[in-house]
C-alpha cells in the first residue's frame, strides 16, 4: 500500500520488492516463494531466539530492580551474555526419558506450544512493509493460532502421567478457554473501530491518531480488559495458576527437561511479546509513529524513526507493564480467576462492545 499521507516513513517494501523481482527474474514462481519462505523462516527463527533471550534478560533485570537486587551482572558487560549462557546450558542438557508416559504426545506438546507462538509472528505488524503475510483476516488468524498453544499445554499435562501436571493442565484449559473469550471480544471491539480485520488496515486506520485516543472510553476499557486477559493468556503472574510454583511445583511442565522445557520457557516469553504486540497493534497504532494532528514538524521527526523500532519499543513497554504485574501481585485462586472472567470481564466487555458500536455510529470518535 502506498503511503501518501506520511511520505517520510520508510517503506520496507522498497527493499523487499526489488529482491522479489530479482528472484523472479531467473527463478520460476514456485521456487521464488520457496526461497522467500525459507529466508523469512530463518530470519524469523533468529528474531524469535533473540527476542526470547532479550526478554529473559529484561525480565530478570526488571524484577531485580523491583526486589532491590542487581540481577545478572557477571556474564558479559552488565550481565548481557547471561541469557546466552543460559540458552547454551539448556541446549546441552539431557532430555530425561521417563517411563509410563505417552511418549509421542509428551514429545509433541512442546512443539505445539512453540509452533503456535511462532505462527502468530507471521501477522504481527513489524514495520511498514515488513509483514510476513498480510491477508484480510490477519488478526483473526492470530487469535486462532494462539489458541493452539493451549492444546500443547493440555497434552503436556496429560501425557506426563503425573497428578500435578494434570491439575496444572486442567487449570490451564479452564483459564485459556475463558480468557480467550475476553481477548476475542476486545479484538472485535477494536476491529469495529478499524473497520477491517487486516493488520495493515488496522495500522493505517491509526495514522492520524492511535485507537486508544480515537476510541477514548471504549478503547480504554477494552485496553484494560485486554491487558488483564492477555496476562492470563500467557500464564503469567498473577494468573500463573497452571504453573503455580508453590502449589503444583511447576504445573504442566514439571516432568520436562532440557530443551523441551526450554521450548515452554521460550514460548512463555514470546507469548508475552505477542500479547503486547497485539495490544500495540490494536491500541497504539502498531508500527505507526506518534502523530499529533496539526504538528507537522513533530510528525515528520517521528516518521524518521524506523517503524520496527516503534513497534518493538511499544511492545516492550507494554510487556514491562505485564512484568510489573507479575512481580507485584499475589496469585489468584482458580475459582476467583474464573469468576473474574465470567462475572466481571465478560459482561463489561459485552457492554463495551455495544458502547463502541454507539461511538462509531454516532461519530463520537476523537
Amino acid at each position, binding site marked *: 500500500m502506498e503511503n501518501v499521507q506520511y511520505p517520510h516513513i520508510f517503506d520496507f517494501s522498497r527493499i523487499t520488492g526489488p529482491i522479489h523481482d530479482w528472484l523472479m527474474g531467473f527463478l520460476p514462481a514456485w521456487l521464488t516463494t520457496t526461497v522467500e519462505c525459507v529466508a523469512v523462516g530463518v530470519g524469523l527463527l533468529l528474531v524469535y531466539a533473540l527476542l526470547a533471550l532479550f526478554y529473559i534478560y529484561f525480565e530478570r533485570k526488571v*524484577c531485580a530492580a*523491583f*526486589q*532491590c*537486587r542487581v540481577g545478572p551482572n557477571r556474564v558479559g558487560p552488565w550481565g548481557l551474555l547471561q541469557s546466552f549462557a543460559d540458552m547454551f546450558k539448556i541446549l546441552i542438557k539431557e532430555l530425561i526419558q521417563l517411563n509410563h508416559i505417552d511418549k509421542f504426545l509428551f514429545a509433541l506438546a512442546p512443539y505445539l506450544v512453540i509452533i503456535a507462538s511462532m505462527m502468530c509472528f507471521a501477522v504481527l505488524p513489524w514495520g511498514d512493509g515488513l509483514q510476513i503475510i498480510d491477508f484480510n483476516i490477519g488478526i483473526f488468524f492470530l487469535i486462532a493460532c494462539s489458541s493452539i498453544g493451549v492444546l500443547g499445554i493440555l497434552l503436556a499435562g496429560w501425557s506426563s502421567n503425573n*497428578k*500435578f501436571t494434570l*491439575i496444572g493442565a486442567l*487449570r490451564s484449559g479452564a483459564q485459556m478457554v475463558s480468557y480467550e473469550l475476553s481477548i476475542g471480544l476486545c479484538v472485535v471491539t477494536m476491529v469495529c473501530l478499524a473497520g477491517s480485520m487486516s493488520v495493515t488496515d488496522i495500522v493505517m486506520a491509526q495514522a492520524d491518531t492511535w485507537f486508544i485516543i480515537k476510541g477514548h472510553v471504549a478503547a480504554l476499557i477494552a485496553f484494560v480488559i485486554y491487558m488483564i486477559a492477555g496476562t492470563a493468556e500467557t500464564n503469567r*503472574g*498473577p494468573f*500463573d*495458576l497452571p504453573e*503455580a*510454583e*508453590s*502449589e503444583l*511445583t511447576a504445573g504442566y511442565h514439571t516432568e520436562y527437561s532440557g530443551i523441551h522445557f526450554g521450548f515452554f520457557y521460550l514460548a512463555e516469553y514470546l507469548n508475552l511479546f505477542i500479547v503486547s504486540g497485539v495490544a500495540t497493534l490494536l491500541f497504539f497504532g502498531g508500527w505507526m509513529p506518534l502523530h499529533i494532528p496539526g504538528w507537522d514538524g513533530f510528525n515528520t521527526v517521528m516518521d524518521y524513526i524506523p517503524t520496527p523500532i516503534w513497534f518493538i519499543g511499544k511492545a516492550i513497554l507494554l510487556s514491562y507493564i505485564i512484568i510489573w504485574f507479575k*512481580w*507485584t*501481585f*499475589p*496469585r*489468584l*485462586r*482458580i*475459582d*476467583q480467576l474464573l469468576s473474574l472472567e465470567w462475572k466481571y470481564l465478560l459482561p463489561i466487555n459485552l457492554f463495551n462492545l455495544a458502547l463502541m458500536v454507539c461511538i462509531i455510529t454516532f461519530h463520537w470518535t476523537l
Partner: protein
Amino acid sequence: MANLQEKIAKLSPAATFEIDGTGILQATVPAKEWHDLAKALRDDKETPMDYLVTIVGADWVESLGCIYYLMSTTDRSMCSVKVVAEGDRETPYIDSVSDLWHIAEIYEREVYDFFGIIFINNKDMRRLFLNIDWVGYPLRKDYDEDPAINPISIENERQSDNTTVYTKEDGKIVKKERAIFHHDDFVVNIGPQHPATHGVLRFRTAVDGETIKKIDVYMGYIHRGVEKLCESLQYPQTLHFLDRLDYFSGQVYHHGLCLLYEKALNIEVSRRAQVIRVMMDELSRIASHCLFMGTYCMDLGATTMLFYTLRVREQILDIFEKTCGARMTFNYACIGGVMQDIAPDFAADVKALLEVLPANIKEYNKIFTGNVIAKNRMEGVGVLSREDAISYDVTGPAGRASGWACDMRKLFPYSIYGELDFEQCVRPEGDSMARFKIHIDEIEQSAKILAQLVDNIPEGEYCVKVPKVVKLPKGQWFQLVEGCRGACGFYVESDGSTKPVRLKIAPPCLPLAGVVEHITTGNKIADLITIGGSLDYIVPDMDR
C-alpha cells in the same frame, strides 16, 4: 490450687497428690478413672481444663505411663495428671482422650510411637514419626539400639493406606484396621519435597477436582530423636539441640530450657543477662515474623515481598552475628546467663533497626495487606474458631488470631516480661488474613519492648558462676515459653545425676500441623497453601 486438688480428689478418690519443682500440682490417678476425670475436668463449669498443654510419655522402668499437662484458659490454673498404663509391658494401654481434646489424637500417636502405649479408642493409632516397620519403641529404657535391628533402609519408603484402631470389648483389647482414604479417592501427594510445605512435610491430599476432601499429614522425615539423644547427654549439652528445632526461635528455646534448669538449680541470673536474653528473644521474634511474611507472600505468588522482609531480617542477623558469631545456630543463652557479652555496638545496631522498622511495616501493608487479590485469597479462608484453636492447641500468632489470648509472656510472665509494657495482640477473625496481620502487630510490640530495653541494659556480669558439673536434684520441672510460633513447653525429669531421665520438648509446630486437616477440608488446593503458610509451622520443630 487447693480447689483443684479438692476437685480432683472428689472425682477420683484414689488420686494421690504432689507438687512438682515448678509448683504445678500433680495428681496420680488410676488409668481406669482417667477418662472420666478428664471429661469432668474439661467440662467443669467454672474453670474448664480446656487446654491440653502436652502429653509426656514416660518409662519409669517398673511401669509405663503418661503425664498430661492441663490448663484452664479461664483462670490460667494448671495441673498435671500422671496416669500409669494398665496391662503388661507388651501391651500397655490407657483410654484415649482424643474425644475430649482434638490434639490428643496426635499427641497420643507420638507417645505410642516412642513408648508403645496403646490408646484405646484413638481413631488413628499409627506411628507418628518413625517408619511403619520400625522395631521397638525408642524412648523405652530397655530399647535395643543395635543398628542391625533397624538398619538404614535404602529402598523406597514403606507406607500403608490403613491405620489401626484399638477398642475394648468385654475387657479385651481388639485391634481393627481402618482405611484412611476411600478406595476411589484421587490422592495427590504434596510433599515431602514441595516448595510450599516449608520443609519436608507430606500431605496426602484426596481431592475432588480442586476441592480438598481429606488430608493425611505425614511427618517424621527429619525426626532426629532429640529427646532420646538428650537422655545420654549432660544438661549443658542438651541445650545445643534447641537451635535445630524451630531454627528461628533458637534464642527463645535456649532461654526457656535455661530458665527451667536455673529454676531446678536455684540459680539467680543477673539482671544484665536477663535483659540481653529478652532482647535476643524479641529480635528473633521480629526476624522470624519477617521471614514468615516473606515466605508466606511467596507462597501466594507475590515473590517481591520476600526481599523487602529479608532486608529487615538480614539486619537482625547481622546484629546476632556480631554478638553470637552465628546467624542461625546461636547457642547463646546458657545456664547462668549468656555465653558472651554483647558486642560493643549492639545498642546502636538495635536502635538503627528500630528506626527503619516503621517505614518497612508501612511498605508491607502497602504492597501486600491492602492488595485486593491478597484480601480475596486470605479473608475468610481457613477460619479457625477459638474453641477449635484451644482444642487443637494452636498457640502463638495463629491461636491469637483466633481470639485466644495465649501469649505465655503474659499468661506466665517469665524473666523480666512482667515489668515490660507491651500489648498482647489478639484478633477475633480466625482467618488467614488475621493470622497474617497478627504477625505485623507482634513485630510492632516486639519493637516496643526493644525500645524500652535498648537504653536500659544494666551493667553487671553476663553469666553467673555455675558449678562445673551440673546436677539437677531429683524431681521434675515444667516450663512454658513463648516461642516465635507459639507456646513451647519443656519437661525435665531428673534422678539426681548429670543427665536427664526424660526431657520432653512440647513444640508449638506439631499442633499447627495437626490442625491443617480440620481447616482445609472443603477448601481448594490453593487454600491448602494459603492456610498452611499462614499457620507458619516449621518442620524440624514438629519432628524434633
